[in-house]
């Protein structure tokens, strides 16, 4: 009975906790303004650190726009061994190569989504609804299960971060540095529900 009371209290507390997005107000800002932040690049190389449930690994993440406008994202370790090679194109996503240790549906889906938010893959910009709060604009893109917010300053001059939200709880927060060569100079992808962090820093070549 005591446990039932505790569990009920926790459930009620969670249910009543205020969503950070409930205070967002509608904004009249131009919804298409966010489109200018879609990364445009030829080839960008990032020094990459991944921390996942106590394991740390590092390597190089290459983003390349191919002549047919598709985007390839290749992860190698520092010694040159290729770990994965993903392709993003209008017709869909493909994992072209993945080492067996990483080649699990859930891992690929998560990496695909994380990288997809960053390169603004398959976003219909005209479907955005724009909200505001604390001098920031929230460009909301909703799909069946989650909402993704691209958050800028109040003049839509700087893309600050990306937040992916499920049932009003933050799932993923992506902090972005200033744009350089068409992509953010630094990126930090932090999963909020389990320990999984990816940090990227552009390498000058």
């Amino acid at each position, binding site marked *: 009975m005591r446990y039932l009371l505790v569990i009920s209290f926790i459930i009620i507390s969670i249910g009543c906790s205020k969503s950070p997005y409930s205070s967002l107000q509608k904004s009249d800002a131009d919804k298409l303004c966010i489109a200018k932040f879609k990364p445009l690049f030829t*080839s960008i*190389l990032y*020094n990459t*650190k991944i921390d996942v449930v106590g394991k*740390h690994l*590092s390597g*190089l993440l*290459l983003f*390349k726009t*191919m002549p047919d406008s598709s985007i*390839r994202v*290749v992860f*190698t370790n*520092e*010694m*040159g*061994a*290729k770990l994965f*090679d993903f392709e993003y194109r209008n017709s869909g996503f493909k994992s072209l*190569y993945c*080492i*067996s240790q990483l080649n699990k549906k859930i891992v690929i889906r998560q990496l695909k989504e994380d990288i997809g938010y960053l390169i603004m893959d398959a976003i219909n910009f005209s479907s955005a609804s724009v909200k505001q709060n604390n001098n920031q604009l929230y460009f909301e893109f909703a799909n069946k299960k989650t909402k993704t917010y691209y958050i800028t300053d109040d003049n839509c001059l700087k893309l600050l971060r990306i937040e992916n939200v499920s049932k009003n709880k933050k799932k993923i927060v992506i902090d972005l540095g200033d744009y350089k060569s068409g992509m953010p100079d630094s990126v930090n992808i932090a999963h909020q529900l389990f320990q999984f962090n990816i940090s990227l820093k552009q*390498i*000058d*070549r």
Partner: protein
Amino acid sequence: MLKKIIPIILLIVSFITINAQVPKGFNALSNETEFRQKLVAASNSTQSIKSNFTQEKNLNVLSEKITSKGEFRFKKQNKVRMEYTSPFKYLLIINGDKITIKDDQKTNSFSSKSNKLFAVINNIVLDCVQGTALENKDFTKKIFKSDKEYLLILSPQKKELKEFFNSINIYLDAKDCSVIKLDMLEPTGDNTVITFTNKEYNVVIPDAVFISN
């Protein structure tokens, strides 16, 4: 008529196939004993190596090349330090079975037995500098020679190695059997070339170099 043509075609095809197996500029080695003796002599006379290296990762389908540079150190027995200095910092130390890797955030140490890829790289690097590549049972070997170089082609036998490499090609100086470069060819068509330059032999290298702080 057809009966006469078929053997000629087969002969031409087999000739092309045989030649395709010999890399351009190289011939099949006529005297393997001499090569083995040179390799052993070079290994016996080498106590330490200090050099620079340049690594080129070629992502051929993407027409992309990722170049990095660093310093290489080897000391008998089984001690290797590869320190990448540009355009990123990364350190690999092999000290016997222990492998330590250090990026600009963290240091990880583990046994080479617990990581297949590092175990392969560990063995290849050590085999190259210690002259024991011909003894490695994980690979079949083919040896070729040009005027200036030997080419040792190692093809993996085990499934877990075939996932990473089609072959590892080791280019050795024909004079002293020192390693000029390693070319690691992947099944996807990509390859990684590590070229060693400014080589110095038997210089004093303190053991502390092979311990990560």
